[in-house]
C-alpha cells in the first residue's frame, strides 16, 4: 500500500489542476470583456471615446452606483434581498438638501441626520425581516415604497436646489488626477467591503449564513445579528450614496435614486460571476458597474438612444449569468 498510494495521488492530481485552470479563465471573462469594449469603442470613435474627459466623466458619474452596489453585497451575501436601498439613496439626498437649504441646518449636521435616517430604515428592515421573520424582499418593498413617498412628501413633489457649495466641492468639484473625489470615496468603500468579506471572520460567517442558515446557527453564529447588521450596513451605504448623489448635482428630486435599483442589482449579480465566481464580491461589482457604464457611454456616442441603457443592462446581465452557468456545467461534466 505504501507504494501504491503516491501513484494514486499522481493519477488523481491532473484533473484537479485542470479544473482550477478552467476556473481561472471564468474568473477573468468580465474584466477582459470590459477591456475589449474599451478597445472596440476607441477604434470606432477615436476622437471622443478614448479621451481623459470621457474617462473622468465615466468614473465620477458612476460613484453613486458603485457605493449602492457595494452596499447591496452585504444582504446578498447573507441571503437577503434589500430593494429599499435605491429609495434610501433618494431619501438621504433629499434630506441633506432640504435640511441645508430650507431649514438652514449646517451641511455637516444635515449629512449626519441623513445618514441616521438611512440607518433607521435599515433597522426597520432588520426588525421586520429578522426579528419578526417576514421575507426581506417583502419588507424592503414596503419600506422602500415608504421612503419614496416620504421623499416626495417632504419636497412637495418638486426638485429642491441650493445645496451648500462646500459639500458640492467635497463630492465633485475637487479632483485628484482629473477625476472627481467621489470616485475615490467609492473605491475606498469598495476596498473596505472587500476586506470585510475576505479578510475577517465576519466575512466568513456572513458567507455561511447566506449559504446555509441552519449550519450557521448550529456553528454558534449569531445569525440574527449578522442579518440585521447586513441590512443596516446596506442602508448606511445607501445613505452615503444619497449624499454623493446630492453633492454631484447640488440638488435633489423626488423619486431620485430609484432609477439605480436595477443597474445596482445587475452589477452585483454580474460581479458575482467574476474574480471569485459564485460569490458576491466587491471588486467584481466595481468592474461590473464600469463595464456597464462604459458600454452605455460608447453606444450613446455611436448615436444610440436613451433606452439603450436598459437594454444593455438587461442583456449584459443575462449573457454573463448564462455564460457562467454554461462554463460551470461544462467544468462539472469534465471533472
Amino acid at each position, binding site marked *: *500500500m505504501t*507504494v*501504491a498510494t503516491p501513484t*494514486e*495521488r499522481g*493519477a*488523481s492530481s*491532473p*484533473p*484537479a489542476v485542470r479544473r*482550477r485552470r478552467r476556473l481561472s479563465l471564468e474568473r477573468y471573462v468580465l474584466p477582459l470583456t470590459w477591456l475589449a469594449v474599451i478597445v472596440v469603442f476607441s477604434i470606432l470613435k477615436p476622437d471622443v471615446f478614448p479621451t481623459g474627459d470621457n474617462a473622468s466623466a465615466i468614473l465620477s458619474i458612476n460613484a453613486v452606483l458603485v457605493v449602492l452596489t457595494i452596499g447591496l453585497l452585504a444582504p446578498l451575501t447573507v441571503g437577503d434581498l434589500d430593494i429599499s436601498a435605491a429609495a434610501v439613496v433618494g431619501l438621504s439626498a433629499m434630506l441633506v438638501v432640504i435640511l441645508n437649504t430650507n431649514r438652514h441646518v449646517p451641511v455637516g449636521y444635515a449629512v449626519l441626520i441623513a445618514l441616521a435616517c438611512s440607518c433607521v430604515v435599515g433597522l426597520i428592515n432588520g426588525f421586520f425581516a429578522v426579528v419578526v421573520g417576514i421575507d426581506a424582499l417583502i419588507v424592503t418593498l414596503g419600506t422602500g415604497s415608504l421612503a419614496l413617498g416620504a421623499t416626495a412628501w417632504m419636497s412637495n413633489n418638486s426638485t429642491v436646489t441650493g445645496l451648500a457649495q462646500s459639500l458640492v466641492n467635497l463630492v465633485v468639484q475637487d479632483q485628484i488626477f482629473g477625476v472627481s473625489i467621489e470616485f475615490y470615496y467609492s473605491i475606498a468603500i469598495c476596498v473596505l467591503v472587500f476586506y470585510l468579506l*475576505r*479578510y*475577517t*471572520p465576519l*466575512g*466568513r*460567517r456572513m*458567507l*455561511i449564513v447566506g*449559504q*446555509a442558515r*441552519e*449550519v*450557521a*446557527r*448550529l*456553528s*454558534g*453564529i*449569531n445569525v440574527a445579528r449578522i442579518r440585521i447588521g447586513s441590512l443596516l450596513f446596506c442602508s448606511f451605504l445607501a445613505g452615503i450614496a444619497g449624499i454623493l448623489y446630492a453633492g454631484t448635482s447640488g440638488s435633489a428630486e423626488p423619486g431620485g435614486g430609484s432609477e439605480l435599483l436595477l443597474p445596482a442589482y445587475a452589477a452585483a449579480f454580474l460581479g458575482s460571476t467574476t474574480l471569485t465566481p*459564485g460569490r458576491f464580491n466587491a471588486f467584481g461589482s466595481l468592474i461590473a458597474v464600469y463595464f456597464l457604464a462604459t458600454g452605455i457611454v460608447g453606444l450613446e456616442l455611436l448615436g444610440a438612444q436613451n433606452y439603450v441603457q436598459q437594454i444593455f443592462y438587461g442583456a449584459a446581465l443575462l449573457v454573463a449569468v448564462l455564460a457562467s452557468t454554461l462554463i460551470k456545467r461544462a467544468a462539472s461534466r469534465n*471533472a
Partner: protein
Amino acid sequence: MAGDSVTRNEDPGTGERSDTPVASPDLILEAKGITKRYGGTLALDAAAVSVRSGEVHGLLGQNGSGKSTLIKVLAGVVLPEEGELTVGGDRLTFPLAIGEAHRRGLRFVHQNLGLIGTLTVAENLFIERLALSRRTFRINWGSFFDEARDTLRRYGLHIDPRIAVQEIKLIDRSLLAITRAVAPNTATGSASIARLIVLDEPTVFLPRDDVGRVFGMIRDLVSQGIGVLFVSHRMDEVRDHTDRVTVLRDGRNIGTVETDSVDDDELVRMIVGEHAARSARAAEELAARGDQDVPLRLHKLSTRTLREIDLTVPPGEILGITGLAGAGYEEILYAVFGAGRGATGSVELGPDLADVRELTPHRAMELGMALIPAERLLHGIAARVTVEENETLTVVDRYFKRLFLNRSALNVVASRLTMQLGIQPTDHQMQTDQLSGGNQQKVLLAKWLVRRPRVLLLHEPTQGVDVGARADISTFIRQMAELGTVVIFGSAEYEQLADLCTRVVIIGDGRISRVLVGDQVTKENILSECLRTSSRVAPALGGAAAK
C-alpha cells in the same frame, strides 16, 4: 473451460489473506483480469470475481473501489481494456453484443430498481413485453393481469397487479424488481432463463424490519440453483446471508474468502486497508487535553417530547441513546447544545452549570461541546463553500490577527485536518459538495474536532456513508472517548450502538424507559427494548396504533 478456472485473487503487494476456492464445475460466472481505465485513473486493475450456482456471493468495497464499474462490465455497459468473461462455461468476447448478458442468463437489479412509479405493477413486471409488442392498440388486459398475478404469487408476492407501483410499499417494489429480473419471460420467446442475478445494494432504502423478506426471496432463488452476486455496505447482512465474499479496493482484488472463515474486523480491514490505523493516530492528536475528569450531568432536561431526563456521562464513556423513530431521543443532543427550541433543565460540566433555556450553540461551544447533527448538508456543513471554509469555521476567530485573517495559517489547519481524517480528494479548496458522502461527513467531523471538544454529541454520525468511512468514524469515536472525551451517541442503528457503547439509554414515552449496561448491550436487546416502548404506549391496540 470452467474446469480450469481458478479465481486469481492473490495480491502480492498487500499480504492480505486470500483463499483460493476449489475449482468448481458449477461455476456460473467467472470474470478475471478485468482492467478499466478512465483517463489517468485505473478504475479496475485486473479485478476478478466468480459466482457458483446456488451461491450468494458478496461483493464488497468502499465507494469508488470499482464495484459498480465491475458490474457494468458484466452487464456489457462498460467496455474494459482487458479481461476475460466466462458465463456458464462459454467464453464471451468483449464488447458484448447488445442483450448478450441477458441471453446468457445474467440479470441485474440496480439500487434505484428501474421501476416506473406511475405504471401498474403488471405493466412494470411485463414492461419488456409491452415495449417489444408489435401491437399498438390491442392488449388483453384481463389475461395480462391474471398472468401477472400468477407470476407474482409464484415468487411469494401477494400484491394487486392493477395498482400503480408508487402506491405499493418499498419492500414490495424491491421484490417486484427482483421478480421481474428472474421470472421467465414467455412472451418474448427467448429461451434465456436466469442463472445469475446481480443485486446492487437492494436493501439500502428499505425499513430494517422488511429486509428479511428480500433475503427470503434470495434464499428461494438460490435453492433453485441461481447464483446471486450481492453488493452491500451492511456488514451484518453480508455476514448473515453470503457464502463467499470478494473484496475490492482501489479497483484491485484484495481477496475472495468464505464468509465464515473471517470475522468482521478482518473483513473491515480488507475493505478499508490502512485507514483505520490512521484515524486512531489522528484521534490522539485531536482529543482534548487537560482537566479530563469532568463528567457531563443533565438535570431535569425537558423538551417537546421528553420530560425531566437525568443523566450523568463520565469522560471516557460512549453513552448510546436511542429509541423508536419519533421517540425524540435526539432532542437530548440538541437541547444540551442549546439548539433545541423550548427545552428546559440544566447542564453541568465540571464547574460550569448552564440553564438550558439560556444556552445557545455559541455558549455550548465555549463550554467545550460539539454537535454533529444528522442532516449533514442541511445542518452540518455548507455545500457550496470550500472544504477549508467548512473545516475552519468554528475556529476562524483564532486566526484573525493584526486585523487580517491569516489565510495561509487557515490553509495549514485545513491541510492537516484533511490528512488526519483521510479526506479524499485532498484538495481542500474544492467545493464541499463535490466530495462523496463519507468524505463530507469527515469534513463535518473535522470542523468540530479542530476545537478539541470535551463533549462530543453525535446524531447518526455515519448516516449515508460507505463502509470505509464508517469504520474510520467508529474508530475515531472510540479513540476520542478513550482519550477522555464525553461522548453521547444518538442513533437508530442498533448494531452500531451495540458495537460502540457500554451503556445504552432507551427513550420511550418521553422518559428513560430502560438502561442497558455491559453484556446487556446487544443489537437484539436494544431492538426489543425499543419495541417494548411502543407497545407500552397503547397495549390494547397493538404496535400500529402507537403511531
